[in-house]
């Protein structure tokens, strides 16, 4: 029997890069602020708007404070890596392209049970939503597959498709290792070697130690600054950075249990309002009509 060469975590990323580069995607780098998903990257958020075609792929480290489990859960962490692909316009054979990418990285499709299970993804803070699926590989979600319909509250024309791979999960199938921290990062170093200590500390921070008062004040200050940059200075990208900071602060406060149910809607509304302003400003600056 031929022993399957284990594809380690960094190999997986290289293979995906190669595959999508071959499809004509621009390989950009991860965004350098705390974000909850690749959707927040300006390459997704802004490129989705307007009529210009665009193809991009990148790794995005994503932070979701409420998902932390002190490194005790084999599957869930407050930080993980997404592989994000945006194809605009959505190609007619995108499902096949996606499945082919899995085959290319080493998932032998016929060995598995693959399902497209209804899931209409939405980000309330970004005013973005789409229609699509979770892709299940043997009952585990490994990718979010979304045809975006709106971003920043604006209808997209043409629409784009977003493929968001959960890299750790795909790696688990490739390596037959079902604990995240035990994954081979490369031939010498494990995922846990790189991330375990960080994971535990961050969980402690998010659930127990973050400074609520400070974060509330920061939220307020960034909110004011966002408004100033967008409304007065018409500085789109610095303004958008503020929105990202607000979104992350919301997540941190939320994980800390500092946001009451009544307040929640109000926080989300504020961030969404500013995201909408960003989208509108983008269209304005690019002389595009708001559709």
């Amino acid at each position, binding site marked *: 029997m031929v022993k399957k060469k284990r594809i380690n975590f960094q190999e997986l990323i290289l293979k995906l890069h190669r595959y999508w580069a071959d499809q004509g995607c621009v390989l950009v780098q991860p965004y350098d602020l705390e974000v909850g998903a690749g959707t927040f990257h300006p390459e997704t958020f802004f490129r989705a708007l307007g009529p210009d075609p665009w193809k991009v792929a990148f790794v995005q480290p994503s932070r979701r404070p409420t998902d932390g489990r002190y490194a005790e859960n084999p599957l869930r962490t407050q930080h993980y890596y997404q592989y994000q692909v945006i194809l605009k316009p959505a190609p007619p054979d995108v499902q096949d392209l996606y499945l082919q990418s899995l085959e290319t990285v080493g998932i032998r499709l*016929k060995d*598995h049970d693959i399902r497209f299970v209804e899931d209409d993804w939405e980000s309330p803070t970004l005013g973005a939503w789409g229609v699509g699926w979770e892709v299940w590989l043997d009952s585990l979600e490994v990718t979010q597959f979304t045809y975006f319909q709106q971003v920043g509250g604006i209808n997209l024309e043409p629409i784009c498709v977003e493929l968001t791979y959960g890299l750790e999960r795909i790696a688990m199938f490739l390596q037959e290792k079902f604990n995240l921290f035990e994954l081979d990062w490369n031939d010498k170093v494990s995922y846990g070697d790189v991330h375990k200590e960080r994971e535990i500390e961050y969980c402690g921070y998010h659930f127990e130690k973050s400074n609520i008062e400070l974060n509330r004040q920061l939220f307020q200050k960034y909110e004011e600054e966002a408004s100033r940059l967008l409304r007065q200075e018409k500085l789109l990208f610095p303004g958008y950075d503020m929105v990202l900071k607000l979104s992350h602060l919301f997540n941190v406060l939320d994980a800390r249990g500092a946001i009451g149910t009544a307040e929640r809607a109000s926080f989300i509304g504020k961030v969404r309002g500013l995201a909408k302003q960003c989208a509108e400003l983008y269209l304005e600056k690019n002389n595009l009509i708001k559709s």
Partner: protein
Amino acid sequence: MRQPLLIEIGVEELPNGHLKLAVEHLKKSLPEAFKKARLGFEGLEIYGTPRRLVISIKELETRQLSQEIQVVGPAKAAALDAEGKPTQAYLGFLKSQKAADKEVSFREIPSKKGEYLVLERKISGKNTINLLPDLIREQIANIPFTRKMRWGPLQFSRPIRWLLVFFGDKSIPLVLGSVCSSNVTYGHRLLHPKPVRVKNIPDYFKKIEQFKIILSPEKRRQMIRQELKKENPFFKEEGYQDLIEEVGNLVEIPFFFKGKLSHHFLELPEEVLAASMAKYQRIFALRKKTGKLKPTFLAVLNGKPKDLNGVRRHYEWVLNARLVDSLFFFKEDQKLSKGDTEILGSELNALKEVDFYKGLGTLYDKSFRLEKLCQEIVEKDLRWDREKRISVQQAAIYSKCDLLTKMVYEFPSLQGVIGHYYVLLDKALQNRLHRDEKLTEITIHALARAIEEQYYPRGAGQPIPETMEGAILALADRLDTLVGFFGIGIYPTGSEDPFGLRRAATGIIRILLEKKIPLSIDNLIDRSISSYSSSLNPAALENSQELRQKVSEFLRERLAIQLREAFGSTGLVEAVLSSEIGHVADLLNRLSQLNQALNEPYFQQAAKVQERTQNIVRAAKGAMDHSGVREDLLVEGPEKELWRAFGVCRQQAEPLMNKGEYQQATKIYGTSLYEPIHIFFDQVLVNTENEEIRKNRLKLCSEIYTFYASRIADLSQFKGS
């Protein structure tokens, strides 16, 4: 001539709800469309899998039925001049209708007077083949998906990727957005990914069979049910229907396999295990004959994977990881219970932060309103003993606490169930209740049970609460909701009922009827209204008189619907509902007894008495005051006799009515008054000139009518079978 029609719409995976909707919609809209197009057809079947919608018609006319049209033109007088020659009106009509002279003639028109110039034409039908493209396009565009997506020029549930249209042996060209129909189809995504040419309609079905694809959603569901029954012959479908339907619509080729559940997780409540398995992996928890969970699950895959062992290993591993999470939540929730700290008790104060609804206070307020409401009912109306009373009151206080637990956050459908478990796991709470309220273990179990049962019935056809504590709490909760929303002016409309008020009302009626609880609707409403005014944070509810009436009407509507379902629409239900309702259980008793007596002669007699007295009374509305019948004003023989007979009847029937022996009471009423009332109406003029005597006679009729109608039923409304 007729030919078969086949349409296959190939799509990217349709959501379960959309697939279901599309199939149901097309089943109705296609026949309508064909009828409108005057195309006869037979043998319509609609199939659906996640990747295709299939419309199959065994026989469809190849040509529209021809139409005979008739267009009416000018009247003869205007169409012909004095010499009988065609006028401008005549010629103008021919021109406008592009008609030849031989196509028109003069006819009598039934709705008009005289003769008119009429054009009669036979329009031969178009060929179906020419009508199909537009018809199909329209049908596809009109499927009312709750959410459509755009991916190009079209909108649909999910992108359409291929089209197959065959009429007879011909493949019909049809363009939909950027998709052109052709004569190829596709099999399972991985097993048969390449396009496959289809020769004709029988060939299509043959290929589908070769692909092992099951086109019919019902057939796939059947296969799943069968497989579940194989595992456990006593398998009960309740609670599994939704999962079976969804899982059926996630596959084209159902393939079954079983896997193991680690014993480690059996410490979790069964409901949590089943909910986690259903939610995260769409797999089925299996039960033994005893009802206990097996450490095994059943999964339905889409086709057989090459590495089945690998897939099984993965499923088991994922199950493990998910249950680690559930166990985490379970333990986190119970972490709150340290020493004297109670699990649910800790959440009670937090309920002050959670709104029930704007204007109706918080969940904390609601919990204490429920306590008060339950207390009033069980103390004043039902007169329960102390321990049972305290049990339901405490259940009310803790009834909403589980809504803040991590477990319910993760599995919202488990609200109530989690509360039940957490009471039983909460030693601190139990000790306190034992110490302060002197509750025994049995009562505490009843309390816990009530917290779960407050949500019963969970839907139409689902069971009502089993325990009385659960029933009272379930009633109180729904009343509080109904009275609250109505009180701030929120009512269900014809198409929208976002707060489930109809469901709440139906639940109240079902519980009162099926548990035969001796409580009156109006009394319950009053108690609920007063619990709002005396609560810690009184809500500003509408005027209570009006409110009580609105809620009462709403509940009566539901009551009528429920009763009609059981007793039919003969008018008997309406007759009984027109009387004073009192206890709903008593109402049911009256209905049952009368229903059995429908063919008895005494029933017919009683109905006649009611009918005749009611007629008179209705005609004389307003002419009466509230004073009683005056014996001294009874002058004629028959009216004196009627009064005497009525006196005897009242004496005998009243105690029977009080005991709930309505058949007997009806017998007395019918037999003793039938003859006298007829003689009275035959021989006595009610509307005599003498006003005092006239009023007295009306009062006599009115009392006879009211005696029965207010206590039992207004039989004048009964139409008969």
